[in-house]
């Protein structure tokens, strides 16, 4: 469910105003984008409008005609502590998940050092989680995190630490999710960052070396600033992806259990999309689910807008 929305960040250079656009050229242009445009209208815009409508209605347990209830669903949403808690968990997960960005930048810088051997092997290892299904990943990690038989606690026990029940303890559950999230996303981010690092002209580094800058100084003075447009892009995508977190929670919180609610740490793991799924599909309360989805839309648009405003302060386009 965590679909990564692609966001075009580096704005294409504005077409210079041409005095005369040839009519047939424009027509061709429209004809060529028509399939995509239609697709967007039918599969994106129409469902959004329908969801917005549904969020003001209530339907029976098996769908059926929707009755208009005005702001009822939203009122219920805000009086229900569960939505607030899920929102808080989601934001916390998103913020902690951003730690994955600096980690990926460091790895990208290390992996693109000239003369490093076996780069292809490293890249494959890092990229493997990206092409593995999230459910499979979550199931493996659930075993890793198992409090009694998991390998993580076994390794900790070797150095004398008694590990917790990672995903059944409310103090560690969210952190456990964040770790899996960062680990899964690392490969995808690396590919983008390595491409970005490769785009930085070598002459800058050579000049810096002549001036006596060490590798750490080079990293902070050259790599990071010149990579900032890429960092910005990855941050935006990663925030949007994190806000839609579902599959990891679904598998890790619930696991083999029918009822995720029987997990004592469930309250600290439930995210907005999980709540949406539970209401819209398990309870089949489509109107309430639609209201949750609309709130998520507001949150995503809001946070993305904030990021775009803040980019002026730290992103450098050369």
């Amino acid at each position, binding site marked *: 469910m965590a679909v990564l929305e692609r966001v075009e960040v580096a704005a294409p250079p504005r077409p210079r105003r041409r005095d005369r656009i040839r009519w047939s050229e424009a027509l061709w242009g*429209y004809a060529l984008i028509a399939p995509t445009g239609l697709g967007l209208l039918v599969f994106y815009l*129409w469902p959004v409008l329908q969801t917005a409508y549904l969020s003001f209605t209530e339907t029976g347990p098996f*769908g059926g005609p929707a009755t208009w209830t005005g702001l009822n669903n939203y009122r219920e949403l805000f009086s229900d502590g569960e939505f607030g808690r899920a929102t808080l968990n989601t934001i916390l997960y998103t913020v902690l998940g951003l730690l994955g960005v600096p980690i990926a930048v460091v790895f990208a810088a290390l992996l693109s050092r000239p003369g490093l051997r076996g780069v292809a092997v490293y890249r494959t290892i890092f990229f493997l989680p990206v092409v593995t299904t999230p459910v499979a990943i979550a199931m493996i990690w659930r075993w890793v995190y198992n409090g009694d*038989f998991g390998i993580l606690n076994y390794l900790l026990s070797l150095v004398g630490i008694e590990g917790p029940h990672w995903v059944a303890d409310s103090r560690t559950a969210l952190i456990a999710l964040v770790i899996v999230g960062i680990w899964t996303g690392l490969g995808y981010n690396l590919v983008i960052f390595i491409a970005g690092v490769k785009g930085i002209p070598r002459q800058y580094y050579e000049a810096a070396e002549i001036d006596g800058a060490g590798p750490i100084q080079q990293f902070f003075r050259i790599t990071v600033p010149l990579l900032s447009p890429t960092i910005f892009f990855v941050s935006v995508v990663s925030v949007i992806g994190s806000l839609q977190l579902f599959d990891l929670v679904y598998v890790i919180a619930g696991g083999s*259990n*029918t009822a995720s609610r*029987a997990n004592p740490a469930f309250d600290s793991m439930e995210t907005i999309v999980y709540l949406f799924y539970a209401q819209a*599909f398990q309870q*089949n309360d489509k109107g309430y689910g639609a209201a949750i989805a609309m709130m998520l839309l507001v949150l995503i648009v809001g946070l993305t807008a904030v990021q775009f405003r803040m980019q002026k302060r730290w992103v450098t386009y050369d």
Partner: protein
Amino acid sequence: MSWLRRTSVALVGIAAVLAASTACGGSKSDDDPNAKATLSYAVWDKNQVPAMEKLAADFHQSHPNITVNVQATPWETYWTKLKAAASGGAAPDVFWMNGPNFQLYATNGVLKPLDDGTDLSNYPKSLVDLYTVDGKTYGIPKDFDTVGLWYNKTLFDAAGVKYPDDTWTWDTFKAAAKKLTNKAKGVYAIGSELTSFQEYQYNTIYQAGGHVISDDGKKSGYADPATIEGLTFWTDLIKSGASPDLKTMTDTQPINLFESGKLAMYYGGSWDAAEFSTNGYTKSRVDVAVLPQGKKRATIIHGLANVISAKTAHPSAASQFVQYLGSKEAAELLAQSAGVLPAYNGTQDAWVKSHPEFHLQAFLDQLDYAVPYPVSRNTAAWQELETKYLTPAWNGQTDVATAAKQLASAMDGALADEK
């Protein structure tokens, strides 16, 4: 191209797509009994899939023009998927139904009532009643189940405890639990499961003289002190260390602990016979007895039924198939190959004999005092509350009585919403 023209082209395109999608959904039914038909049959138990396929093939032999596709969906997602399919008018032609979900589906027009004069006297009355609402019966009982006390003979021998039998009471059970717990080896007496009320809490609630829901289905029984006593039975086991704590049971389900020799006992349904007889570890090490007695004897009885979708495109074929599934020959086949207790009267012996390694008669011995699975019109709504409110009690954060009373008032609210 003007803006208007562009928009109209887009609208025509959308209209075409919508028209195409509605055309697919609205295929008309053919009710010719000899017409070729392919039925979908949705089930959830992977252990029973081979048996269901055998039944489908057997049925195809006698009805060559009807083909049945068995579609297995894991229990965890079965109801979510079915609800979505039923909302979209695309429910499977024939599917498994259980007690807690039945009334919601029947009263919302998802199920087709049985209207072809099926002889329902062939099945236990309590099961027929479970699938009857407002005077109409919607499902032919498929199988039924009671709950028994499964135990690991190897661990009992190691602890020097006598095997359970029908003389066991709660006190015998608790005394044995103390001896069976072996912290050093990571062995517990039993797992106080929180996710299967049918196998755990409901049994002890009725054994303690409590109740889950009032007879008229309008009021919760969780505030009743006897009901709370039935819950305390399990939380006490966690407190004393005879059961793993909830965190451990979240990481590894009790059934997996039992199947790997970490639990000495397991409250399990008769359907577990299929699971335990195929598991390499449990196959030769476990056996089953009747549940230990509390203030009185009780075990939860529940059964599945085969039902037909109200919107099936092949009502007559579906009806023939369901009739076949309810027949004596199908029941016998079920007993031998599916490992569950068939509902057809008098065919249960075949099931008892199908696994001579287990004392399966224990499940039938409890029929006299079996308590029907508690349900109401929208059972799922308050079943979710049961888990939600009792989790803190199982986790030792709140006192059981407080949690049970909160649950009672929340459940009363859910019942009031049913109308």
